[in-house]
């Protein structure tokens, strides 16, 4: 318990509420996500999972609530920051349900764009880069090195020079994760990374995510429908239904929670009558 108090959670969501006109998409949601853990957010369609991500990454301004990200002894209040500031300073990277790679750029370039900030500083806004100054060359080499590392991790090193748009679907998904990791994030938000993957690809994804969690010490926040992924790799599962949290705990605890079963399978009306 004392450990808990001295160590702030990576992400602390408190009383998050998001209303669109009369519709309440998220209703008073509080949860925490830790570093070196995979936190999964699950729930039926329309439960508000992606809306949570959009609030965390600055796409939406929450109606009510406080989102605190703790990174290197700094607290960032995400609800007050613009999207690109969240990416730059708070170190939140995300992927989307629908793939958003730069289709007409090469695989390698996609990963270099993600390191734009360090490169841009090193290149003195392109001038040094244009004249090939050594400081820029060193930074560029380092960026390519990091990109190469991630391409090897996601097994795309052989396709580095192909256009991202030409890759098969599963490869594009992995490339998106690699690109997000190239921003050197503190927290990685993945929106349905296993959607559309076959079982073999899905198993590979599990391995990759576990590797990211264990070797890079970052927190992973995951939205996923594929329960084999969720139950196998998450440390912590949060279940949403109609924008409200109905369960929160370890995969096993959540799996056996009657409220969760009810949300997924529906009420057993006969049983209620019988009671």
């Amino acid at each position, binding site marked *: 318990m004392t450990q808990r108090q001295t160590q702030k959670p990576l992400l602390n969501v408190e009383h998050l509420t998001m209303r669109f006109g009369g519709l309440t998409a998220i209703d008073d949601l509080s949860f925490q996500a830790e570093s070196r853990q995979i936190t999964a957010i699950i729930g039926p369609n329309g439960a508000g999972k992606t809306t949570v991500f959009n609030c965390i*990454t600055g796409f939406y301004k929450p109606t009510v609530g406080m989102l605190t990200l703790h990174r290197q002894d700094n607290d960032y209040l995400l609800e007050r920051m613009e*999207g*690109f500031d969240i*990416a*730059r300073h708070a170190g939140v*990277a*995300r992927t989307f349900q629908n793939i*958003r790679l*730069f*289709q*007409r*750029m090469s695989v390698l*370039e996609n990963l*270099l*764009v*993600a390191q*734009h*900030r360090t*490169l*841009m500083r090193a*290149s003195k*806004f*392109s001038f040094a*880069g*244009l004249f090939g100054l050594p400081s820029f060359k060193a930074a*560029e080499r380092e960026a390519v090195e990091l990109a190469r590392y991630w391409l090897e991790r996601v097994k795309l090193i052989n396709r580095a020079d192909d256009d991202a748009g030409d890759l098969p679907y599963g490869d594009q998904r992995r490339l998106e994760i690699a*690109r*997000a990791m190239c*921003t050197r994030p503190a927290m990685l938000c993945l929106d349905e990374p296993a959607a559309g993957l076959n079982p073999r690809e899905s198993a590979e994804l599990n391995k990759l995510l576990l590797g990211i969690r264990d070797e890079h010490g970052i927190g992973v926040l995951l939205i996923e429908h594929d329960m084999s992924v969720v139950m196998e790799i998450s440390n912590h599962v949060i279940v949403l239904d109609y924008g409200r949290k109905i369960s929160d705990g370890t995969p096993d605890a959540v799996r056996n929670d009657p409220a969760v079963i009810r949300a997924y399978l529906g009420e057993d009306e006969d049983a209620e009558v019988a009671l």
Partner: protein
Amino acid sequence: MEYFAQQLINGLTLGSIYGLIAIGYTMVYGIIGMINFAHGEVFMIGAFVALIAFLAVTATGIAFVPLLLLIMLATSMLFTAAYGWTVERLAYRPLRGSFRLAPLISAIGMSIFLQNYVQLLQGARVKTLQPIISGGVVLMEKDGFTVVLSYMQMLIVGLTLALMVAFWFMIERSSFGRSQRACEQDRKMAGLLGVDVDRTISLTFVTGAGLAAIAGMMFLLYYGVIDFFIGFLAGLKAFTAAVLGGIGSLPGAMLGGLLIGLIEAFWAGYFTTEYKDVAAFSILVLVLIFRPTGLLGRPEVEKV
């Protein structure tokens, strides 16, 4: 044959100038999807700044031509780039996220404003410049007709080529170019990866204005006559060039510029000078009807 060669040289020279302006249109369109109608005026300002720089430098007694040209070039690029940056900052950035027509109207307003601003400050009368570089190489001579490649034309085409190579290198290889292309494809995503989208857009305007400044200076040196209204027609022609080449495509802008220059030169040479603008703009109409994406443009294919 001789006549043809001469018109070819003239057309290429003119086309280089159009091409440099067209790049500004096409880059801005690529990144924020709007036509910057004030770009022609930015070109005009480039010509004026070059002229002012020329007068200021000659007043100090420097008469060494390469140095003179270099100072004109640097001054014109610097000031014009500042204008490009300011136009974007004042007239377009506040309207980003507004409906699509808003920045377009704002651009037209900016164009009118800049014309009148220069007219007020510099007067409405044409300004002239004595030729700084004269002479040339006689390439062919036959029956009293000589084909001349002037030093001025060499400078224009040569400088344009050099700029194109440098610019291509910057877009394809540098970190700025990479982020520029990324913003072109998905601005929101680029922002989420830590690219400062606003700055990238600003830099796009700055580079576009820098190239337009060089075009303005070339125009001044080549024709020796400028006024506050030159930006209108040159801008429109360059816009046509950008559309002809495929708006959003950099090689397209250059190719379109050269083609428009050639069409104009040949039309003026073989038909009538009065109707050369009609020829250029007829091409615009035909391209829009038969090949709306332009020569090198990418058709929008939606994946279903």
